[in-house]
């Protein structure tokens, strides 16, 4: 604290010295201009500065357009970030240059004696109008600002296309009766490979792994601790359960599984999403135990085939992925 106070005092002292020096250089009051002449007014605008501002604004607009193009074609997040960031930086530089070199800086009030002859009023006014506001290429800069605004607006609005459910994918999981569960190496997952307390990620055979409905978490509990509703009694052979790996809150991957070595002195088994710690109880059909998720994890009914591999016994129990309008608590 003391250090901060000292720092502030030093800054204040330095500013006082600077102000004093500035007053020494320009002693007040300044001598009044002997005969004010509107044509002698110093205009800040320089043609090259105006052109620079226009170029910066147009480049800003182009970056906005580039953002839209990248979004539509590759969705490379680094390029998206670079385009959006560069657009904003260019806009900021354009505004800074304009404020220093284009817009007139002076704020002086010119004392002016009253005009004696009314005949002189009109020429004087015309003279003033001819001087303009200090921006000689107002149209150019306005157009460039329009380009920048349009580009930025397009870049800002485009990501809205990512909102809401896509026409295909959500809810339509690739699981059918008999679909095999493949492990991360692409081999069929065998029931015997899973010990009590096991945790594995599996995918639907024959489906794109990136498809939202494909990944499931497979866990094995003791058979006597599984309490499924009557309609799902047969969904967990040997205590092996499968749930969609996509959290029903924001669509993150449910990648945390806790299974207590000793339940009396620690917590109950749970599937946890690392994004917002939505916690689901695998013993009770994926019920939400904690966190922002609004509905249970969809469960995949399982069966063990004759060769010991795990297969789906039917489709998922509900829609996959984050909640959206119309998806109730199922």
């Amino acid at each position, binding site marked *: 604290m003391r250090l901060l106070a000292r720092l502030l005092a030093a800054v204040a002292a330095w500013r006082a010295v600077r102000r004093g020096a500035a007053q020494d250089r320009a002693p007040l009051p300044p001598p009044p201009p002997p005969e004010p002449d509107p044509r002698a007014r110093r205009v800040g605008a320089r043609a090259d500065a105006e052109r620079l501002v226009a170029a910066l604004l147009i480049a800003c607009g182009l970056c906005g357009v580039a953002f839209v193009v990248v979004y539509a074609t590759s969705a490379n997040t680094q390029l998206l970030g670079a385009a959006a960031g560069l657009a904003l930086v260019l806009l900021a530089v354009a505004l*800074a240059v304009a*404020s220093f070199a284009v817009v007139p*800086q002076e704020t002086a009030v010119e004392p002016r004696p009253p005009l004696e002859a009314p005949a002189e009023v009109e020429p004087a006014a015309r003279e003033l109008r001819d001087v303009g506001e200090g921006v000689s290429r107002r149209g150019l800069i306005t157009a460039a600002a329009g380009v920048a605004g349009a580009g930025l607006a397009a870049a800002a609005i485009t990501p809205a296309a990512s909102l809401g459910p896509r026409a295909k994918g959500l809810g339509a999981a690739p699981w059918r009766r008999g679909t095999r569960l493949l492990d*991360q190496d692409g081999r069929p997952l*065998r029931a*015997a*490979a*899973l*010990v*009590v*307390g*096991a*945790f*594995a*990620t599996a995918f639907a055979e024959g489906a794109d792994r990136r498809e939202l409905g494909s990944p499931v978490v497979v*866990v094995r509990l003791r058979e006597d601790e599984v309490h499924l509703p009557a309609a799902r009694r047969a969904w967990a052979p040997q205590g092996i359960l499968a749930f969609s790996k996509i959290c029903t809150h924001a669509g993150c*991957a449910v*990648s*945390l*599984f*806790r*299974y*207590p*070595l*000793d339940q*009396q*002195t*620690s*917590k109950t088994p*749970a599937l*946890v999403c*690392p994004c917002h*710690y939505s*916690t689901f109880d695998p013993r009770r059909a994926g019920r939400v135990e*904690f966190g922002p998720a609004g509905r249970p994890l969809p469960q995949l009914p399982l069966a063990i085939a004759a060769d010991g591999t795990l297969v789906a016994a039917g489709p998922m129990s509900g829609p996959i992925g984050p909640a959206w309008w119309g998806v109730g608590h199922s």
Partner: protein
Amino acid sequence: MRRRAVPVLLVVALALCALGTLAFAQAGSGAQSPPVGAAGGGAGDPVAGHQLFVERCSSCHGTDGAGRRGRGPSVRGAGALAADFYLRTGRMPLAEPTDQPVRAPVQLTATQIDDLVAYVASFGGPGVPAVHPERGSLTRGQRLFTDSCAGCHTVAARGGIVLGGVAPALQQANARQVAEAIRMGPYLMPRFGSGQLPPADVDALARYVLSTRDLPNRGGWAIGNLGPVPEGLVCWGLGIVVLLGAARLLGERTT
């Protein structure tokens, strides 16, 4: 009536244990000896181990190792694997039974641990797994770790939080402890059998975990190798200061 029966049973159990471990020690001294961290490879004395167990462990696990309701689980069948892991990482003895056992300074001497491990192993259960990190593939280890472990431990094995527990950082764990934890699933960790992760995969995982002790940093501030989110936050923090300075400069009176 029951009170009187216990000491008799105990003596019988002890005698059986002693016999069993003798046989185990003879059989186990050959092929089963753990190649990594070979200190205390089943050389303990189960009778001395039981004595120590009664002194240090029985308030939670019971004098006969069968556990006590609400205080501690049975150690029967936990095997040398669990005893070795919990004792050599200092997680046991635990001050409060409902606390999460975390890595701590080892509270017992190596001989005492050998004896306790021999006592717990005398009930049967899995032995200490053999692990050869030098044979494992680092790339496969990283992939497996990302798939199965990184959710809780983070991809750089710096540890994290599960509701109700802490997933520890793994830089202090040696290869044997990594293998033991995979097979046993200590505290709230899931368990991975050899059907799911064969020994070659455990070797690969152990090699990857050991490699996280000294991660390559391409310059700059590593921020605990926690990934892009904290890096972004730091950028925000620094960037805001730079922006404030720039705004101050731009807005300064020029005349």
